[in-house]
């Protein structure tokens, strides 16, 4: 009788890339449904079309490049869904179509595919659309946390994701618990931002930050592990710097766009932070 030999370990956790992606998508379902409830048909159309375009673009590009098609891992669906959620409901449908195709083709494909990419594809798609068609990407209203009920249904929501801060937080709690997004980044950035705003005299703007868009940005976009540093210290540094950058951006930009640009800028620093925070092994030098 001979037996199979293989290197350790002989059991593996049941988490997989697939579960991470689809789990994150599942976490976004409550807010997706709330957006459709609040905005009706336009929201449903934007979400469906954006996701489908993202998936089709990925299939076409990877086929053309004769690379294995990895649609099943859910990454393209997730990128499409995130992009759709940060659209205003009034946007003409061709805008997110271009955005989704761009997000998959440039930041995801050209920058090396899942795992090695530098910038978050959904954010790059958003920034591209904002630069090209600023008026179409603008929102009809700016949400702010006026009362308790706004937490659950924000009637002033300007973007799909802003429909319900509470439901974004609910999904966020799930992905944080499962470690599908990085806890250090999400917590350090959020806590610091909320602490600093009153200190630097921006306390009155806090209600604009306690919205679905910000929670999505801080938890699902900024803390996406692919684009954050890998070292433990680096992730804290990243979150702290991000909070600072958002504060600066708030002076120059609208609320949501400011946060997105801050995250994209931080994406650039990520490798640099990693390089400078390599830990010493236990016991030090």
């Amino acid at each position, binding site marked *: 009788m001979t037996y199979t030999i293989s290197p350790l370990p*002989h059991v593996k*956790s049941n988490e997989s*890339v697939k579960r991470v992606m689809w789990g994150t998508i599942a976490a976004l379902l409550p807010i997706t449904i709330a957006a459709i409830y609040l905005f009706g048909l336009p929201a449903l159309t934007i979400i469906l079309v954006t996701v489908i375009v993202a998936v089709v673009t990925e299939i076409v590009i990877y086929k053309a490049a004769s690379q294995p098609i990895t649609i099943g891992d859910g990454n393209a669906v997730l990128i499409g869904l995130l992009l759709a959620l940060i659209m205003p409901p009034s946007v003409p449908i061709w805008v997110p179509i271009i955005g989704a195709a761009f997000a998959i083709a440039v930041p995801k494909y050209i920058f090396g595919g899942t*795992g090695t990419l530098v910038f978050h594809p959904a954010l790059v798609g958003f920034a591209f659309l904002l630069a090209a068609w600023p008026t179409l990407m603008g929102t009809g209203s700016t949400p702010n946390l006026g009362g308790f009920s706004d937490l659950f249904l924000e009637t002033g929501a300007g973007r799909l994701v802003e429909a319900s801060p509470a439901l974004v937080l609910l999904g966020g709690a799930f992905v944080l618990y499962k470690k599908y997004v990085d806890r250090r980044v999400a917590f350090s950035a959020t806590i610091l931002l909320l602490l600093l705003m009153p200190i630097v005299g921006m306390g009155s703007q806090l209600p604009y930050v306690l919205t679905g868009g910000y929670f999505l940005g801080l938890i699902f976009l900024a803390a996406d592990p692919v684009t954050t540093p890998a070292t433990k210290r680096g992730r804290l540094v990243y979150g702290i710097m991000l909070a600072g950058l958002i504060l600066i951006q708030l002076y120059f930009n609208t609320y949501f766009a400011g946060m997105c640009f801050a995250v994209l800028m931080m994406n650039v620093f990520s490798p640099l932070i990693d390089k400078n925070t390599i830990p010493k*092994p236990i016991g030090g030098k």
Partner: protein
Amino acid sequence: MKIVTIKTPDQVIIPLQQHDGAVCDSLVSVGDIVSVGQLIGDGEFRIHSSVSGEVTAVSELPHPTGKDVLSVVIKTHDGEKSEIEPVELSTGKIRRIIREAGIVEPNGQPTLRTKGDINTIVVNGTNTWDLSSSEALMLDHPSKIVYGLKALMETVGAKKAFIIIELGSEALHVMRTETIPDSNIKVIATPRYYPPGTENTLAKKFAKKKVPRGSTPEDRGVIVSSIAAMKAIYDALCDGEPMIKKVVTVAGAVGSPRDVLVDIGAPIGHVIKECGGCSGTPVKIIVNGAIPGAAQYSDEVPVIKTTTGILVQTESNIEREPPAPCINCAWCVDECPIGLMPHLLYGYADSAQFDKCAELYIGDCVECGMCAYVCPSKLPLVQIIRYGKHGVAEMEASE
């Protein structure tokens, strides 16, 4: 009793290397009649016969670490084992007795490495994954374990000791009750903690002594030991029994998974048979734990002093998912007990950039397997890191 004593096999294979270090010299040759407890190997450690019988071979045979090691094969007389005759051990000097009884920690190290001052003893009583032998020993022999610990504390002059047990383990209550009269022995509950084998992390976490890289806990006045060693010290002191038996957890696809007391040298196939045999077709047999353990070529390899568990896996237990690219999730970084960057080591080793591997302290990796266990991309991290270590060694040799 949790621990079941199993039948002595017809033949035992006792390797002359059951520790980290050089192979011992054989004191017997083919045809010799040996009795249980008789010294058959000497060197850095002492090795005793676990049965009475006739030496039928002294040759290189498969060892659970995967290599062939000089071993003494003894055919048990009439398949029966005579009573253990207390071995003559010098009295008084516990330090000597521990050596003479051939006590080896589960990680292959001696319990006492230095003569330096020792302040604290940390006894690792955690169970990991499929291994429960520490818990079984504590439940069955709490007083013997405390006896062994006290003897060791007295010998080295340690002022305090910690017994580390997982939260939720039955042993927690048993050991707490047992140590009530001893204010200097503290039972500490910890969340599931892995890997147990890294003494330096245990010393840091529980004795609050940071052990510099390249040194051992003893340098900081700490001994990190095991429940098995405490029981072995008791056996040696009170029963005159050297280390010739081991409590081993048999788990996985076997008829009755349990903790068994096994004669050192018993082939693992014999142990599995005594636990009801394999259920289903065994595909993999793993010694010493599902995560850090070693898969075995054959079920002829023996149980040795460092063996803690035997795990049988069938086809359905085996992960065959193909690896996907690293997604930089850093789960491996969070899990690494040494504080390394496993995904970077993987990347650099995979692309043969060994200088980068060395810069990232690849040599410090203890091959605990946690990084590969958690990796959602199912990357063979340990395999590639091992390759990287070889690469670094070759690079350094050619410099």
